[in-house]
């Protein structure tokens, strides 16, 4: 992962800047940053990626760093990633299969209090 082009701000040595030595107690104005700029989105906005592939590679790098598996050996990384991936896949499958049914049942239960009572839940499921 090498250096990316970045918009140059105050740290650009090529642009002469008038810098004031911040030596006094009241020199800083502290303002809280804007509402929830997430730590991933902000650098991503600053960095310029040459291609989608590079962006995906950077996202993968962040995933390695955050979960801590950056320090593991490649085969351990594969084990962890496959376990995580299968867990997520199972979660998606389960939600795809079961969530609509549960939502429909819940809605009918609550509408049944105010409205018509169904004969049986078996009739509902078919």
């Amino acid at each position, binding site marked *: *992962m090498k*250096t*990316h082009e*970045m918009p140059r*701000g*105050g*740290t*650009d*040595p090529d*642009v*002469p*800047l*008038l*810098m*004031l*030595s*911040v*030596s*006094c*107690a*009241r*020199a*800083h*104005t*502290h*303002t*809280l*940053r804007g509402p929830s700029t997430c*730590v*991933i989105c*902000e*650098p991503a906005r*600053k*960095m310029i990626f040459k291609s989608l592939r590079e962006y995906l590679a*950077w996202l993968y790098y*962040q995933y*390695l*760093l*955050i*979960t*801590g*598996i*950056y*320090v*593991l*050996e490649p085969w*351990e990384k594969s084990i*962890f990633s496959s376990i995580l991936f299968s867990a997520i896949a199972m979660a998606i499958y389960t939600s795809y299969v079961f969530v609509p049914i549960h939502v429909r049942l819940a809605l009918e239960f609550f509408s049944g209090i105010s409205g018509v009572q169904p004969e049986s839940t078996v009739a509902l499921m078919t």
Partner: protein
Amino acid sequence: MAITAANGALPHLSPNGVKCEDIKRNGCHNKREKNGPGTGIASRQHKQESFEQAPMYVAVMTYLGFGIVTLFGYFRDFLRAVGLEKCNLAQEREEQKDFVPLYQDFENFYNRNLYMRVRDNWNRPVCSLPGPVFDLMERVSDDYNWTFRLTGRTIHNAINMGSYNYLGFAENNADFLKTVADTTQQYGVGVCSTRQEIGTLSIHEELEQLVASFLRVESSMTFGMGFATNSMNIPAIVGKGGLILSDELNHTSLILGARLSGATIRVFKHNTLKGLQRRGGRDGRKVGVNMEGSVVRLAEIVALKKKYKAYLYLDEAHSIGAVGPSGRGVAELFNVNPADVDVMMGTFTKSFGAAGGYIAGKKELVDYLRSYSHSAVYASAMSPPVTEQILRAMKCIMGKDGSTEGIRRIRQLAENTRYFRAKLKEMGFIIYGNDDSPVVPILLYMPGKVVAFAREMLERKIGVVVVGFPATPITEARARFCLSASHTRAMLNQVLRHMNEVGDHLCLKFSRVKYSSCPDLCDETDFELDS
């Protein structure tokens, strides 16, 4: 170090060296300071110290990272135990399996499962002097850091942001080192004896007088090793039955010395006077921190100690030479009378570019230590070239060599510190500590990022020191930059530029407070052109 009772004089020591008549009235405050130089405005007591908290998700992710690596650690241990994987660690022989175990398996869990994976970031071989730039030997590992191999190439002129070289005395300029070379010619290098036997040279006497006059105390004694100065002298001063109040973030040498002494130790929360007071306030030692960058509140501590009739042991390993308008440490910074501090301790490793430590104070104290300290009696005396290096550095700082080089360096360090810290804060990193401290800890938090940071910076030819658990709390892993008076503005700018890029690349800018430098409200404004 609890020694005497209310009369304040050193007690009559019996041969076994343990005395403490009255537990209640003894004690010392011990403090280790590490700070940048002051601004010369002694009245500016309020220091800006910041210890910003990271967002909650950062702590969660840190624990997550550690948890996952720990799980894999158990898994790998299981594989090693079963025999599916070769064990690279020391193990007892088959015939010795029934003996008392020599290598404790579980204690080294962290070491073999986390540290070993990433230990290429530590113990890097340096092959030049540790000046503002240095050379590193390139080394690679073929088996995931169990063994290393030097490739033969050298990384030249990497910027050194890790050495304790605050005033830039780690230099190899032949003119400056002329006196050191002459001393080596005259005295040789090894002393071949301890101070008590036949190892006290005239140059040691000269150094001790100079240190005493530098610190404005009666007398001082120097030792060959800084760590040993603490760990060997505290048992000589305090004994069983005394009480030591120790700051939570004390250095290991102080903790070791306190434990060796056999006194009761009570720890109080770092730099809090209320904590100190609550802890009985009778005796105590307060020590500043090595990893944090905060300043001790010396005047208040002295007031407390007078109120409770305790003794103060001040450890200035990092602040001597670097703090205070003329480099005389925190006592000068806060305008405290040096006679109020009972035992002043410091080391020569950091600001003077040498090795060793000193203890300074009243003549009776120092004379007592000459006979009863383990370091003085058993340890080898300080080497003559090292002694001369300290002499020349100290004379330079005091201005006795006739030039203003010392003051220039102190000012340069102050300027570098302020600039560097301000720019890093502006970029959005979380920095701990006092604004004047030349030790800049940048919080990285997650174990993966700590390692990635060190490796990325090395690729960009900047040498940094990163520290994680267990030297720091588990959620506060950091990189620690040590600024030097010999860093030029161009070097700092280069480091800052790379820090900016790496910070974005690794998403390290956790600070939620926006800093902007405001031109009109400043007391002192220096206009500098960034070119």
